[in-house]
């Protein structure tokens, strides 16, 4: 296993390097630029080629793309994430301030997502073709179909119309006022978790149904074990491989979901930072954002792969 982990870790920097080239190139394929935005939305009264050239030089865009890339990646690997073109704030400082917010949201999302998804899936499988199974299937499909930006809007609007309630503002840091912070974060976390939990529930149900039909489960029942024991100790563990994969993916979907949820609920996290940067063509921020979350996703996938062995002893890492 050590050798496997070592090989995977060796691949990590190569993966990140390739990712960085992809991210850097992809962003530059997006039409428009910070120069155009500045010249057009700013004060284009007498903007001419000279103004454009000065701004390009100011942002380092006058150099060939490959030189820009080498400069940027060298800077990143030396620990300097650069500064925002828009606010000139250190990107590292911004990440330091925003990352805990998004991590908290992700953790809360996972705490809701995993028990809700697996719990409903297992319950639905055990109660196959009964009223509660049908109800759960209906609800999971419903939440699969509802876009989370719309759900987030409804979650704000409906309590307001019915009870005059709105989430307390402004955003409070966890370490400053945990109670208020939890009130502010729990609803966004639920919104972010629901669609994912619906997928997890659907997969958990089908996996569980398959496992419950296995001979060893029938044997367990024949031994006289209680249904609860059979399901939790014998069946559930054997459904976990695909579920773990899905749970690993929630990191990616959770980050993507945070982009919308943080906008709607005025949470100053990484998702909102990305939206703001995209809207203003703040490329240094977008590049670093995508690179870091890409690298984190690679790491999470490694952890997921390694965890397979915990649930299925037959899996060997070679």
């Amino acid at each position, binding site marked *: 296993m050590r050798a496997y982990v070592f090989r995977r870790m060796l691949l990590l920097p190569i993966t990140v390097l390739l990712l960085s080239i992809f991210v850097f190139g992809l962003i530059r394929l997006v039409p428009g630029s910070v120069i155009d935005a500045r010249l057009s*939305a700013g004060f284009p009264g007498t903007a001419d080629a000279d103004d454009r050239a000065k701004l390009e030089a100011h942002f380092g865009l006058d150099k060939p793309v490959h030189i820009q890339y080498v400069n940027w990646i060298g800077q990143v690997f030396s620990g300097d994430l650069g500064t925002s073109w828009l606010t000139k704030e250190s990107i590292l400082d911004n990440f330091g301030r925003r990352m805990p917010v998004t991590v908290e949201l992700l953790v809360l999302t996972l705490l809701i997502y995993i028990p809700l998804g697996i719990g409903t899936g297992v319950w639905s499988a055990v109660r196959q073709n009964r009223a509660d199974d049908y109800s759960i299937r209906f609800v999971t499909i419903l939440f699969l179909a509802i876009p989370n930006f719309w759900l987030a809007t409804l979650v704000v609007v409906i309590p307001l119309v019915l009870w005059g309630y709105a989430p307390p503002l402004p955003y409070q840091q966890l370490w400053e006022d945990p109670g208020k912070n939890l009130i502010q974060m729990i609803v966004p976390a639920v919104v972010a978790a629901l669609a994912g939990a619906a997928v997890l529930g659907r997969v958990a149900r089908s996996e569980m149904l398959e496992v419950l039909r296995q001979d060893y489960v029938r044997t367990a029942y024949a031994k006289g074990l209680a249904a609860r024991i059979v399901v939790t100790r014998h069946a559930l563990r054997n459904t976990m491989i695909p579920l773990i994969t899905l749970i690993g993916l929630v990191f990616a979907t959770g980050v993507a979901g945070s982009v919308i949820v943080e906008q709607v609920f005025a949470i100053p996290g990484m998702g909102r930072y990305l939206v703001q940067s995209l809207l203003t063509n703040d490329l240094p921020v977008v590049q670093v954002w995508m690179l870091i979350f890409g690298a984190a996703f690679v790491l999470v996938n490694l952890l997921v792969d390694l965890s397979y062995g915990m649930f299925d002893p037959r899996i060997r890492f070679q």
Partner: protein
Amino acid sequence: MSERNYWQRMRSNQLSRRSLLRASARAGVGAAGLALVGCGDDDDDNQQTAAQAEPDQQAEQQAQVVQQQEASQQEQQAAVAQAQSSGGPKRGGNVRIVMSDGGIFDPAIAIHGGTYAGVHQIYDWLNYLDEGFVITDGMAELPEVVDELNFVYTIKPNVFWHDKPPLDGRQFTAEDAVFGLERFGFDNPEFVFKDRFSLIDKFEATDELTMRVQAKEVFSPILSAIAEDNMLMVSRDAVDAFGDGAISTDFEAQIGTGAMMGASREPEVELRLERNPNYYKEGQPYFDGYVGLGLVDDAIRIAAFVNGQTDFLNYQWFGRPVDLDSARAELGEDAVTGVANPVTYGMATHIHCEVEPYTDPRVRTAVHLATDREQLIALSLGELVIGGPIAVAIAPYGRTEDELRQLPGYRSGDLRQEDLAESRNMLDAAGVDLGGFPPMDIWAPDASDYAQVLQQNLREVGIDIGINELTTADALAARQNREFSMVMLGQQGASDPDLLYNDLHTTGGQNYGNFSNPEFDALVEKGRSVFDVQEREAIYNEAQDRLLNEWNPRLYWSWSTVIVAFRSYLKGFRPTPGPTASNAILWGMWFDEVPDGAA
């Protein structure tokens, strides 16, 4: 006065009930995109005159300005008097406003209303534009007009910098004013207003409180250029102490002379300002402080207002009539006050005059005649009004909807049929291939619906035109690089009819469609060299008439309506005209009763 009536009429006529759900379902990201494009303060030389060349004209002009100002002040006093019946202006409370400052504070760089509505409360103007674009005394008295090239500003003796190092509450001087204005022209690639004063020869402090402005040539919009909403005074001491870059990004470096002083700022979360006890307007501001909340999504913004966590529904550019309806539906008509704010940006369709078939003015005029403005405006749910080349808010130059509706191209019913027939005749005369029009570029998704209406309008005269949807950035780039045949985008704001010079003069910076006509050039060149309002009005009337009847280098169809909505317990609100809808004048407002949470 007719202008004011116009806006009052807008307020009363345009608003219709719609549900909160409908308003809230509008995408916040789209609004943010709109804001980023639409709120740009882009005019370089758009100013309103307050002075004259000849001495007698000067006196007359000064008298007009003073008269307008007095009328304006009388109105304000009337508003105060009205409020006094319920106890008069009261001090106290922290006004809570939705805002987003975008993290750029430097007035020489900041280009959107978010900053003006927030951090820029810390700064102040020498003169500013009050309602009706009237130049009004601020830290300096109204300028003495020595001649058409020389103006003298006298700084008021009770203007002080905030009591923070390195300024430590010292007197604001003429040297400060000179630096504050000259700084806009410093050689910094990010300074976007650097050509504002390209026709100024020099700013000069002649004594501690007197500044002389000398122009290189006659330029009638000069005084309103100095009074525009971005012309906020930054101090040399702060620049020296914190560095030029810090003025843009460091909240601690924000030291001005404004009604509010910086207290704290958490990016995108909360901005706190506190009352400046030494503000030069005696007894003001009435608020103890200012709390700006960083909310970008429509649903949470409306919810926070209805729920009582904010006092303004849509303080910046988000002043949509539909939002006011939503809030009133929840809180009641009387609980929410909506005031139309004269802004000068909107939507227009730029036509490239060097791209076939638009090289022929008859084709452009045919397009103008075929466009159904009523249909286009109807899509905006009250956010846009029908407009001509000069924004209606720029009185007396801009034309009202009623005036425009009498003109070919703006008419409806049978008269529209006449316009369509004339359009077809022009196309026949021009001999163009009606199926060969290049597709129009549009700013999607914001302009998608409008583009489809225009497409249908043009089909009525046989023109078959496709639609090419572009992202905001791409549409801006296409316009900036002149790589379009027709592009539907935001229309930049201004505070003076001289915007036509910038928009359409052969050398105009925003002449995206490369329109060039010596007669038009001569008209707008004359317009910026004349101080007399009536003479200017005649010039710009002729320019507008000929633009709409003969040249049509741009398809004009709308200007924005901004409805600033706030809780009715707030009194003394004063709409601020301008390109950015910045609504920066807060010092005269007060809480009639301080609500929970604002104490």
